[in-house]
């Protein structure tokens, strides 16, 4: 159990830009409807790559971007997604009307270079005076802190697919232990990028279902063949509970526990027994003081690769024992693809919305059960169900795992 001196942390604002909606209501509507955001890539010419499709953010309203000219030169596409998601989360929380003493920023992201290859061809990789900022992973945290006058800790985490969840975990601990009173936290990324398409294609990690993109992301299905590159951002306002209560904030839920672990195994593969993922879930639940039977939903990492989904299922069984068959699990990557550095943040938002709305979002494209993946993945259609506690899992290359436990905030 948590020692008494640790402070409670709640979520008071959310914002997201995703391939299935660029606002929270749009995204939620798509999730409940089981809509796929995966289609042929349009922003770059991917026609000759082994994979020609992805989950792109469409209809992104440019008027929502910052009007500050300097910011526009520093922030690239993924950071602009992050900027909009952050603005939405802050507005939603109304925290700027009565900010606490110490607000920080904790993000999961890394630098991207969609124009790297053509620039390499013409030999001018860094023509701009601001390029050392534009291509730094930490510029986004700095830009947000500076714009909103946040004096608290700034953190940028880069652990690929685990970044967003780890950034949130760090934010949670900083409030819990009194280093900050509130944190703007989440992640942003864009994988619709020739370098990422190259790198992940070569590793054989991507689905090659080029004749049927909408059904390519099929976590836990027997015929899954890899993940789908996505893009977007998710941002949350985490706030110390008493402060949120005093200012009568709308509380989405409570962040109750966090853990990260390392497989110490292989760079890309997870161990078949799911050891690191098991420890991540177990330690996070211990941190939260939550028993397995109290968990009503798991937002799985569920990438739709053969290895991850099998290993994650094994880890859930090990962690939850007999109860594993009764806990609903879904992978929202089936609809929006893999947002990598942003994935964990968007998925924690989905956990919050699941608790608030009492609706489980589905794993779409689930058609043929895999004997090795035999749990309740909420196949294809949303399900009305009350959920009090939920887990969000993220596992990444380099063997890094992280889990956040959230719950309905009680008085």
């Amino acid at each position, binding site marked *: 159990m948590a020692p008494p001196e640790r402070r409670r942390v709640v979520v008071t604002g959310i914002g997201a830009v995703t391939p299935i909606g660029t606002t929270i209501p749009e995204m939620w509507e798509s999730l409940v409807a089981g809509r796929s955001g995966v289609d042929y890539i349009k922003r770059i010419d991917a026609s000759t790559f082994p994979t020609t499709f992805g989950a792109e953010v469409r209809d992104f309203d440019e008027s929502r971007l910052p009007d500050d000219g300097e910011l526009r030169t520093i922030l690239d596409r993924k950071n602009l997604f992050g900027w909009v998601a952050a603005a939405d989360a802050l507005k939603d929380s109304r925290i700027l009307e009565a900010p606490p003493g110490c607000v920080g920023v904790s993000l999961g992201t890394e630098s991207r270079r969609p124009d790297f290859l053509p620039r390499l061809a013409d030999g001018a990789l860094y023509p701009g005076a601001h390029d050392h900022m534009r291509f*730094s992973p930490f510029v986004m945290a700095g830009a947000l802190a500076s714009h909103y006058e946040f004096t608290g800790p700034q953190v940028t985490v880069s652990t690929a697919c685990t970044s967003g969840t780890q950034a949130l975990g760090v934010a949670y601990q900083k409030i819990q232990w009194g280093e900050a009173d509130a944190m703007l936290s989440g992640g942003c990324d864009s994988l619709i990028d020739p370098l990422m398409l190259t790198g992940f294609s070569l590793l054989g990690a991507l689905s090659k279902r080029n004749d049927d993109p909408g059904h390519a992301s099929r976590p836990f299905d027997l015929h899954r063949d890899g993940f789908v590159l996505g893009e977007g951002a998710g941002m949350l306002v985490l706030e110390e509970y008493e402060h949120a209560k005093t200012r009568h904030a709308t509380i989405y839920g409570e962040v109750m526990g966090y853990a990260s672990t390392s497989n110490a195994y292989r760079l890309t593969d997870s161990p078949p027994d799911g050891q690191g993922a098991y420890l991540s879930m177990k330690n996070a639940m211990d941190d939260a003081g939550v028993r397995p039977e109290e968990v009503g939903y798991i937002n799985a990492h569920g990438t739709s690769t053969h290895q991850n989904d099998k290993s994650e299922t094994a880890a859930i069984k090990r962690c939850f024992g007999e109860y594993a068959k009764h806990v609903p699990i879904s992978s929202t990557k089936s609809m929006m693809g893999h947002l990598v550095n942003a994935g964990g943040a968007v998925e924690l938002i989905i956990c919050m919305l699941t608790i608030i709305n009492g609706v489980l979002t589905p794993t779409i494209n689930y058609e043929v059960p895999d004997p090795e993946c035999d749990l309740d993945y909420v196949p294809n259609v949303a399900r009305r169900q009350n959920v009090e506690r939920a887990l969000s899992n993220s596992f990444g290359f380099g063997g890094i795992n992280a889990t956040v436990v959230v719950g309905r905030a009680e008085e």
Partner: protein
Amino acid sequence: MNKRRVVVTGIGLVTPFGCDVNAFWSALRAGQSAGRTIASVEGADRDVAGAPVCGFNVREHVDPKSLRLMAPAVAFGVAAAQMAAADSSMTFESIEPVRLGAFVGSRGHSSDRQDLMPAVQRATTNGDFSLAKFGAEGLPLVHPMWLLKGLANNVLYFVSLKFNAQGMNNNISMGGVAGTMAIGEAFHTIQRGYVDVALAGGYDSGLDLDRIEMFASSRLVTKSTDAAHASRPFDRRRDGFLPGEGAGFFVLETIESARTRGARMYGEVLGYGSAGPAASKTLGPHARGFAGALRAALADAGGLRPDAVFTHGLATRESDVEETRALKTVFGPGAHNTPAPALKSMLGNSFAGSGAIEAAAALLALGAGALPPTINLTEADTDCDLDYVAGTTARGMDLRAVALSNANLAGAHAALVLGRV
């Protein structure tokens, strides 16, 4: 609150003054400059003034198979972590894997352009690059593991694998504060009971082609070609930082565990804090951020007053003035009596590596009872009027606790307080 005490029992270094801890300290003590004129940066069209890593034979530390999966600076980090582990005499196999953490201050994702060049050339006709041609004909020319070589958390992976560190971890890609923060986050994680032992440090290089070109059109890097005198923190004629490279890693554990196994203790981590600026028009190091992080770290250490501050001392016009202002804000009139050396005068700026390397120097200073000097400070800037230990010789001084201050170029600041055990 009953917080656990955290001590440093192992140091591993890959620096411009070599990999030997004693040699590193001797060079700092003697006020040497690591600045060199480098003619051999692959692909660069001119000589580069910098502080390159010396005396490092990567093959002594990393097997050839693993090395193929490491961008050059990654090997610095992995090697430094291994040396810290050896230095600690810790039996890592005896630790429950999930109670062993790893925290890395990382450069972030890096793309080694040489690995992509053949494919790019194949896809370029008369200067025009075609992505379709790249996808069709270029792709087979790229190494299948290309993405992993530049993976942002590559050092974290290899360190976790090597020592079976399965516990709480992080990979902080925060430029100039990353190494400092990795140590601070590891400290809090042990102090608060999430793990018992951690490997923590930072690595980076400012001397590969990517970094050199990235900063070429900025005003941040020194234009001086006199490499040994190019890094001049707090001096009136400073004109930017001297790019350096390297890594520093540490073994951190509870004081009980160190005492039980009779380990040598370099010092104790007493406090850690980080802060952003409150509204600065341009991103970058700022007095409010320096002061905020320092105050947070000192409060975290129980409100002590440090005997000295190891400054960020970047040697850009703005950063040094901001940092001086911050020290005056935090210490008031006492700022003039608080020695504040700038090690970047000797070592240059190795970005995510700097904080860790400077933390090693601070720990060695505590043990030796001596402060390394700020070299190349011969004509003080009127806005930089504190005691920076100017000169070329160390100053003997009884040191009980010192602070270490760092910032990054987007305005994040972090500080550590380190004490004698």
